[in-house]
């Protein structure tokens, strides 16, 4: 670890925080329908789509609209992938994507997971990348933000039954935030060297006289929304490590900023909408604390290097360089990894499978904590609010008072639903990973022997259920078993979580916002932030410790003892 490394981390996170302020203000304005000069365009678009923005939906109708839209998106994407061989814009003449893989990939992009059991440059036509995957990058991100709007409204208002209009929220977020943001970022990336062309590839004659086929494509635009929408699915197989997807340290820094700026901004939007900016900052502070701690842990573990390799004769100066490219440096690799797993993005600028055991433990654990640090666009905030409800509930139990959050009484129904939501993740992760580790159809996919193999499988289901999408790449994921089970894990992690959350929102929206009393636990100060962090660690993380002990922790001990597998 070096001072200059920490200066890089500080600069990038600082830029993200500064940018989150105006984005947070704009998110709040959109959620409240204050569109300024864009109002006329908004009205016109919504009229064509047959949407009356003023007609609010109760939580059930909001949920139903969201589910129907995502189901239709899944069907369309599945069809596009299966039929890409007969559709246009397929310059490399790739075959149609086989059924299991298409099922997995379509679910993956619709749920904002972007787990990839394929390698883009050898499987996906330009049409699939553009009209299929890129479109879902936008729509799944907009779905998440729309859901967050609905949940915030439930806290902000009192005694209402309606949470807003899903179609209007979806349209506004897409047209007035994601699209302009992605176009701007795309040009920044292209200027930094990311290709944006419909050419398939170019063949170079190398200096030594060999032949090198260099793949090209419409990468820049997809790259921009991949980070801004915390999607994470790469154009190329090695994602943001590819020199065309992560051409420089500057490009990787911009990617880090993009993947946290909306989750950060949503916290601030939450504060604005509930009428107390401090409330939003408290949530943001908890997220930042975890991101910094995780970055520190990854940076330290990777900078220390791999003792097995150092003993063999590798200089310890550069740290662990297997699976990393030179241009980013360890500090930005650590910050990228902490934010991409904390923010449910899932892009990578360093190969997690080759991290030291503790360096790999951190991203795994960050996802397991529930993807709320800061979490995906929208999903991070509503996930965090679930933990906030549980935190005030725990505090209420300690002092024997009815817990309340922002003046809303938190009662048995909300707490039961919150626990149901929080339990979806460990059930999917530990249940399905456990099953895959005892069945031969699962273990056949493992590359590494010993505890690292267990970590690979655990990571896959964690990433899928957490809707993250990053991978310990050693696992052979393109098998019928893993394509199917990982697909179900993604479904559970997205919709199994969101249904109870919207039910909570519906029930909270109906409650009046009571004024603070003398016994109210303040939820904007360090006391609450600490309590919230504790609840996230204990309720979100504790159940994974046995599995982590068998995987990365056992591997760390073995590595220190000089053992390889």
């Amino acid at each position, binding site marked *: 670890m070096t001072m200059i490394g920490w200066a890089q981390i500080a600069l990038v996170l600082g830029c993200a925080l500064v940018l989150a302020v105006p984005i947070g203000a704009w998110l709040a304005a959109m959620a409240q329908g204050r569109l300024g000069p864009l109002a006329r365009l908004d009205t016109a678009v919504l009229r*064509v*789509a047959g949407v009356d923005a003023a007609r609010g939906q109760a939580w059930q109708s909001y949920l139903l609209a969201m589910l129907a*839209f995502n189901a239709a*998106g899944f069907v*369309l994407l599945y069809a596009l992938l299966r039929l890409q061989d007969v559709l246009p814009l397929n310059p490399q003449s790739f075959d149609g994507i086989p059924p299991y893989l298409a099922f997995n990939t379509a679910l993956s992009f619709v749920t904002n997971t972007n787990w990839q059991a394929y390698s883009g*440059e050898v499987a996906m036509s330009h049409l699939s990348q553009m*009209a299929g995957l890129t*479109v879902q990058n936008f729509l799944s991100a907009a779905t998440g933000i729309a859901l967050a709007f609905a949940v915030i409204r439930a806290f902000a208002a009192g005694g209402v039954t309606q949470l807003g209009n899903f179609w209007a929220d979806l*349209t506004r977020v897409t047209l007035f935030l994601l*699209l302009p943001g992605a176009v701007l970022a*795309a040009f920044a990336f*292209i*200027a930094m060297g990311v290709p*944006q062309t*419909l*050419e398939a590839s*170019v063949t170079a*004659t*190398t*200096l*030594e006289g060999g032949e090198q*086929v*260099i793949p*090209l494509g419409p990468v820049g*635009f*997809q790259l921009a929304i991949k980070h801004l929408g915390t999607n994470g699915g790469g154009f*190329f*197989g*090695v994602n943001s*490590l*590819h*020199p*065309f997807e992560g051409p*420089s340290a*500057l490009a990787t*820094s911009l990617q880090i900023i993009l993947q946290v700026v909306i989750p950060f901004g949503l916290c601030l939007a939450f504060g604005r909408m509930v009428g107390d900016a401090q409330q939003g900052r408290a949530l943001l502070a908890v997220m930042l604390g975890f991101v910094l701690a995780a970055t520190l842990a990854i940076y330290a573990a990777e900078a220390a*290097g791999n003792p097995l*390799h150092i003993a*063999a*004769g590798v*200089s310890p100066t*550069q740290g*662990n360089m*297997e*699976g990393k*490219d*030179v241009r*980013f*440096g360890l500090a*930005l690799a650590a910050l990228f990894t902490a934010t991409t797993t904390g923010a449910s993005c899932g892009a990578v600028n360093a190969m997690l*499978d*080759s991290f030291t*055991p503790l360096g*790999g433990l951190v991203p795994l654990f960050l996802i397991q904590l529930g993807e709320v640090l800061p979490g995906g666009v929208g999903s991070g905030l509503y996930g965090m609010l679930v933990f906030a409800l549980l935190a005030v509930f725990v505090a209420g139990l300690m002092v024997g008072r009815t817990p309340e959050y922002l003046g809303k009484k938190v009662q048995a129904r909300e707490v039961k639903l919150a626990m149901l939501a929080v339990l979806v993740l460990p059930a999917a992760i530990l249940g399905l990973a456990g099953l895959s580790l005892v069945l031969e159809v699962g273990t056949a996919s493992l590359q*590494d022997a010993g505890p*690292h193999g267990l970590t*690979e499988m655990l990571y896959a289901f964690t990433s899928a259920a957490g809707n993250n999408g990053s991978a310990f790449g*050693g696992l052979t994921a393109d098998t019928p078993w893993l394509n199917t089970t990982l697909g179900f894990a993604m479904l559970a992690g997205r919709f199994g979580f969101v249904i109870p959350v919207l039910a909570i929102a519906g029930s909270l929206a109906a409650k009046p916002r009571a004024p603070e009393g003398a016994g109210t636990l303040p939820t904007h100060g360090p006391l609450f932030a600490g309590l919230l962090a504790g609840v996230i660690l204990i309720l979100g993380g504790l159940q994974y410790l046995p599995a982590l002990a068998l995987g990365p922790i056992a591997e760390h001990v073995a590595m220190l003892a000089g053992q*390889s*597998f």
Partner: protein
Amino acid sequence: MLRPLLSLLLGGTLLLGMAVPVGVTALAGLVLPEQAGGSLIRREGQVIGSALVGQDFQGDRWFQGRPSATSAAPYDASSSAASQLGPTSAALLEAITTRLVGARDVPADAVTASGSGLDPHISVENAREQIPRVAAARNLPAERIFAILERSIEGRELGLLGEPRVNVLRLNLALEAVR
């Protein structure tokens, strides 16, 4: 519900999946043609590579890039890949030991496979260690090679971000220009 659903999904696909990316592609081709086309390097009209994508150098006359784990051949740009071997993998330890050929204190980037398999850069230390070999193969004084190398070092971006590094293809092109 059907009308908003279909109009937003299909309208969204046309706008976000076709109109905008095609528009961005066209505009990028106009204002940033070099970068949008892959930052290609041409010599006498022929494409010899991309400034951003590493290529394979085997001979002693060249500075050599990092080990590459792409499958068909090293630096196969049509299929980017990392080794994906874990930290306690015996296969990885063996590969690194083979690359070390008994040497000690070797810069890590010289014996570990890059994450992309296409890393265009090596560390400055790694490049300096290669000077004697390149000088001998080219029959040039080491100081001469050293000077060319020093000029090829790229500093941190904006003076802060990333690591100092050497682009192997550009360095080898500079070497070729000396003859």
